[in-house]
């Protein structure tokens, strides 16, 4: 396995993010850094990646593990290239979220929480994403796909079948360099 290290651009961004907090409070940068790590290291946080983030912030690895395991957006296991996160709380359920989930399950031959055998897709049902007025919806990376129909879902899956990159919540241009 190659050495775990952010690329130079990300490392510069990490330093800029740490400066957002008072001296000695660099641990505040943990959540943003874990997002950057997940985006750069294949969409999930392995123990070595978390240890690396701990070293950047000069905190103990356990301080990273306990945070990474608390928040739902951090993946502690590998996920497919395209992570389909389908909301199914009240407003989305009222407008057909369960049918959307069933449609994806049938189409990809996987159940909620599973990854297709080719490693392309992971299906994850999630709780309210604040898209209630445009329900039903699903999220892929930072993109909200709203007012879903089966046709729209099919088009998304088709689109992502041909992509080689990982779906991401952010890239190095998301955060301002202060």
């Amino acid at each position: 396995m190659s050495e775990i290290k952010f690329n130079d651009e990300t490392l510069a961004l990490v330093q800029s993010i740490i400066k957002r907090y008072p001296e000695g409070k660099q641990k505040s940068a943990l959540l943003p850094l874990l997002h950057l790590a997940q985006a750069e290291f294949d969409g999930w946080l392995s123990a070595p990646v978390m240890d690396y983030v701990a070293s950047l912030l000069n905190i103990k690895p356990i301080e990273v593990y306990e945070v990474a395991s608390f928040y739902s957006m951090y993946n502690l296991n590998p996920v497919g290239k395209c992570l389909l996160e389908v909301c199914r709380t009240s407003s989305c359920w009222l407008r057909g979220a369960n049918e959307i989930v069933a449609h994806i399950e049938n189409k990809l031959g996987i159940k909620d929480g599973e990854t297709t055998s080719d490693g392309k897709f992971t299906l994850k049902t999630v709780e309210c994403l604040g898209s209630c007025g445009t329900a039903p919806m699903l999220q892929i990376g930072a993109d909200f796909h709203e007012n879903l129909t089966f046709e729209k879902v099919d088009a998304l899956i088709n689109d992502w079948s041909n992509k080689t990159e990982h779906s991401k919540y952010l890239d190095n241009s998301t955060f301002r360099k202060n």
Partner: protein
Amino acid sequence: MSKKILLEHIGVPGIETLAVYREKGGYSSVEKALKTMTPDAIVEEVKKSGLRGRGGAGFPTGMKWSFLAKPEGVARYLVCNADESEPGTFKDRYLMEKIPHALIEGMITSSFALGANTSYIYVRGEYFYIIKILEKAIADAYAAGWLGKNILGTGYDLDLYVQAGAGAYICGEETALLESLEGKRGNPRIKPPFPAIAGLYGCPTVVNNVETIAAVVPIVNNGGDWYAGIGIGRSTGTKLISASGHINKPGVYEIEMGITVEDFIYSDEYCGGIKNGKKLKAVVAGGSSVPILPAEMILTTANGEKRLMSYESLADGGFASGTMLGSGGFIVMDETTSIVQNLHTFARFYHHESCGQCSPCREGTGWMEKILHKILDGHGTLEDVDLLWEIQRKIEGNTICPLGDAAAWPVASAIRHFRHEFEDYVKNAAAIKNVKHYHNMHNLATA
């Protein structure tokens, strides 16, 4: 009539940019505050305005500000709560996406009033595309001199940063948010001390919702008395309502407090009536945690008066026949909706989102979800409905933070107003099992 204050310029092309926002009078509250007002005078105007916290609790903002401790030589912080996660609520997202500078302007004016030189906007991580919009807007505000050192030559310095959350409803609770901002798990703190005394990094801190901060701008521009003249009674000003569910026109609406609920649901100016010509069955008026009310109770108070969109009118009758304005997450359900199934989605939500710190909530939310699943699966008994009632009662008031109450109230109100629906599931258990069995067979046959 709709009254647009926060969304006055919503349709203006380019209003998301600093240039157009400025053309429409944007950042004038910063000029007025920094050049002509003292911090205390701003707090006084906010008090006079009667503005109440728009995140859900409705606590008077001016009073919250006046509690802020000001020990010599200790930093103070303003933290904006943009962790919008209450099911049914998407108004802050709308405001930040469409008019990001309204929030940034509010943050500058409010930070000056509170004597904060560093402020943070904590945005739920799922809204990363919003974070990108805010980061761009903040960069533009720095470049134009609205942020940074010596703003407008007044000697006032302010740094403003966006913090990304990572998926946790509980971080909308202000002390959990502060824990998260310190790079920890989002476990709410025991209070006191309140954040006004010991908040971020142990320093005096004010945490306010996005909509609350944005409302400070027109209050400073036009005065607290002007704002207090809008709305009804102690529900002053306007409120952003996120409308969803079985309505013709879901979306975010800015309303003057005091319009009738009936008008809000049926007028073409707002929700445009129930979808597909169906009848209204029930409404969750203020986000998932507030009590669900059947149609007749949401439209009319127990005294037979038309219910209004205001803190007081929605709460009229207490939990026996009333509800709460909450976050303004207005979820509408038509006559075909299963109240028990909807409740199951809420129970699953709260179980998923409980931080696990207090046992009544950690265990109770799990049990409520399981029992509802059992009932929906055709294995429920009448005793299960009573057990559900008992569990919610034992969570309420017995936890460090209000998530426990928030998990209990939907269950309590669903049983209070729709007990017959739970009983129907129990009485028809055999039929439910047969239908499920049929579907399973069918799925096997086609697999």
